[in-house]
């Protein structure tokens, strides 16, 4: 049941973890590398999931971008997660697969200045065009490391050597 | 010094009287429309100015007159201001041949009906100019709608009128009215019910009244052809709309509902009463129905009203010929 464990057939996720739906509202966390996002999205569309939203969280390690997928006919929510660094926050767009992602991605660009490569129309959506992007960015002081924030639950599949919390970088930022 | 022709004086007096009549009726109709709308919507309507809001239309008129006349940037100033005048002026002429009473006619013409139909066509031009001249996209869309709508609806209107003309053999409105009796069953409406309905529906279309108010459909085109007009520019269109309503209702009354004829006392009051009943129906329709779509409007015209009117005309011609 390896395929089932991975959740996705077309790509190999970095990590899959299971959560309690009652506790967090999520069934599975799927960590992906940025390049795999469109392939995974294609598969999700094929499996009749719809995209609920895309949001980004600004943490010490970088941006944790979460794609929430859910189903129409049953209670199931899968979160695709991808980490990008502050230095180069670029993720390939999925707006050609899920057209609804177009606006979600533009909103993300407004709020967190994340670039979605290949997006046809990455102009400000909610903010004024003159406002600098990234209004939700946190200062270095207020950023928290990811492991203080989110418990990803019990891991069911992990690619060798992957941890959701990039320890080295976090330790650098927090000299104790 | 040559003598001033009596006829000219008569027409001038009639025109002044008509202008006063139109103005007064406009005020009454505005009040009526708002009051009826209010009551249909279970609210009082205008209530604060004067007893039961009776002076509200007057206050509105004063407000409209007092407002700044504004010409939008890049608009064609001449056409822009010609349009409201052009929409209002012919309306006065339309009232001349209307037989309000046995003796009460501005100008007793043999071709009175023709005059009305001809001059009412001018209204389209005004709408067109207004939309074009104001250099506004909504205005242009509204004008385009108005033109195709008016052109389309003029045909069944004419055809249904023609049926009556065939039947009575006259285009003189006074004669048509005189041909009908005092009691409702003696009116043309009984003989030509289909023509009456076609006439009334086409009249709604011709005067741009809801549910056919596409030229000014505010949820689509904000205000259509008169989007850019302020103050009395808008006021003129407004007045012309109401005056046109009165004209079509008057024609309907004269042709189909026995004109000034009525049980017991013939006279102008019967004419006015019937006109106002029709106007009330128009107002009632407006505050009840949603607006039709543009293609539906034209479909209704070309697929239903036109063939029916033609059929009606054909049958009328047959019957007249036979009898």
């Amino acid at each position, binding site marked *: 049941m390896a395929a089932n464990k991975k959740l996705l057939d077309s790509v190999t996720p970095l990590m899959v973890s299971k959560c309690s739906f009652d*506790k967090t509202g999520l069934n599975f966390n799927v960590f992906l590398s940025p390049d795999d996002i469109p392939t995974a999205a294609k598969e999700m569309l094929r499996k009749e999931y*719809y995209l609920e939203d895309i949001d980004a969280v600004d943490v010490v390690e970088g941006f944790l971008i979460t794609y929430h997928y859910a189903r129409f006919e049953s209670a199931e929510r899968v979160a695709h997660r991808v980490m990008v660094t502050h230095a180069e926050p670029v993720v390939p767009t999925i707006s050609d697969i899920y057209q609804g992602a177009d606006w979600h991605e533009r909103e993300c660009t407004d709020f967190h200045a994340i670039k979605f490569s290949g997006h046809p129309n990455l102009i400000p959506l909610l903010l004024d065009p003159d406002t600098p992007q990234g209004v939700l960015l946190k200062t270095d002081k207020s950023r928290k490391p990811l492991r203080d924030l989110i418990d990803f639950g019990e891991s069911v599949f992990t690619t060798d050597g992957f941890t959701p919390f990039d320890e080295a970088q976090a330790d650098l930022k927090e000299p104790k | 010094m040559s003598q001033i022709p009596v006829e000219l004086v008569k027409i001038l007096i009639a025109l002044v009287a008509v202008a006063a009549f139109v103005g007064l009726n406009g005020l009454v109709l505005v009040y009526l429309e708002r009051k009826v709308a209010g009551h249909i919507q279970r609210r009082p309507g205008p209530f604060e100015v004067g007893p039961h809001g009776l002076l509200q239309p007057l206050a509105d008129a004063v407000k409209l007159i007092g407002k700044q006349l504004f010409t939008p940037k890049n608009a064609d100033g001449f056409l822009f201001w010609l349009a409201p005048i052009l929409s209002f002026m012919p309306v006065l002429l339309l009232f001349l041949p209307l037989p309000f009473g046995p003796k009460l006619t501005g100008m007793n013409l043999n071709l009175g009906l023709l005059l009305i139909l001809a001059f009412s066509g001018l209204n389209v031009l005004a709408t067109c100019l207004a939309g074009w001249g104001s250099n506004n996209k909504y205005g242009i869309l509204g004008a385009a709608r108005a033109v195709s709508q008016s052109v389309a609806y003029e045909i069944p209107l004419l055809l249904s009128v023609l049926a009556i003309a065939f039947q009575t053999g006259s285009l003189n409105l006074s004669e048509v009215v005189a041909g009908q009796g005092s009691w409702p069953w003696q009116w043309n409406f009984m003989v030509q019910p289909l023509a009456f309905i076609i006439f009334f529906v086409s009249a709604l279309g011709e005067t741009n009244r809801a*549910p056919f108010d596409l030229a000014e459909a505010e*949820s689509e085109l904000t205000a259509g052809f008169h989007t850019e007009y302020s103050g009395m520019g808008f006021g003129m269109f407004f007045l012309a709309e109401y005056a046109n309503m009165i004209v079509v209702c008057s024609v309907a009354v004269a042709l189909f509902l026995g004109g000034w004829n009525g049980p017991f006392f013939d006279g102008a009051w019967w004419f006015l009463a019937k006109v106002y009943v029709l106007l009330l129906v128009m107002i009632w329709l407006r505050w009840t129905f949603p607006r039709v779509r543009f293609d539906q409007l034209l479909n209704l015209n070309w697929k239903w009203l036109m063939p029916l009117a033609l059929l009606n005309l054909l049958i009328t011609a047959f019957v007249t010929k036979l009898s």
Partner: protein
Amino acid sequence: MNAFPEGDFYTHHFEKGARENTMILNMGPQHPSTHGVLRVILELDGEYIVRAEPVLGYLHRMHEKMAEVKSWVQFMPNMGRVDYLHPLAWNHAWVGAVEKLAEIEVPERAEYIRVITSELNRISSHLLWWGAYLLDLGAFTPIMYAFDDRERILDLMQKPTGSRLTYSSFRIGGVMNDLDDGFLKDCAELVPYLRSRLPMYKDLVTENVILRKRIEDVGHMDKDMCMRYGATGPLIRGAGVKHDTRIIEPYSVYDKFDWEVPVYKEADAMARYMVRMDEIEQSLRIVEQAVAMIPDGDFMIKKRPKPAWKAPAGEAYFASESARGKVGIHIVSDGSKTPYRVKLRAPGFSNLNVFAECSKGTMLADAVAILGSLDMVIPEIDR
């Protein structure tokens, strides 16, 4: 060439298509049928729409940033203002998410109160939509009748919630006020009255041939389209999918009532219209049952969160069903007095997204009918 070189950022960005003889029309942000301040840039070929692009952000208030500077309790009134027509669904999503995060068990009576008020709120929201939609379609009277009935609901709701529009009466761990017997009695009386009004709505509007001709076969949105855009609520139910968060992810006490999810297969504006009209009826059913079944007990947990209350660290996603679709709130907490990150998923945001594709090739009047059938609330879309 652009006749008006002035334009703004968005008109410059929206270039004219390849076709000649088209014109670009700015519909909104001040336009009677864009309900507030939505702006749609349209490329028109005569009356037909070649391309449409909604421009958002005229009512953007950055609720997500506000959440990061206000405490957990203080953010509550914001939820009343995101979607002003059905604020209690947002209330529910927020308290639900926080309660999920902090694992707070809410007294049952509080859940019943939440359901009763939220469903009444849903009815009032649908009634207002109904009136406003008819206004879009050119009928002026229905909105007044709808307001008459809506006003009765507001009069009733005013007592326990303290407001008539931007309700924020839910609290983390319960609700603000208890419902007294007078309210329950009035509520039980209001339900049959509202039900008796529905046939009138049907006769005046639903059966009206002009309306049916206007909105039947207009704005086709099937399941595939809804999936690609993430459209929920009446849109997906009008496309024949039985999707309602209240049933699919049952929250609160919705699973205790006997009611149905109205589903229509036609996927046009009329289907969405019918879904909403049927939902009024279903909400009345829920209210009726809830009023009869409401248990005694507390309406608030014993240890109510104080202003400086701290939620535990972690994340939670909670979805509720508003009158417009699925409201989702994603909270990330670092265990401090304020949330670390709050993401609000507005149903209208995804629903409006469909418009651009759906309106292609339709007439301007149809576009208005489609836009109305989405039931947009701009503050919710812009947040």
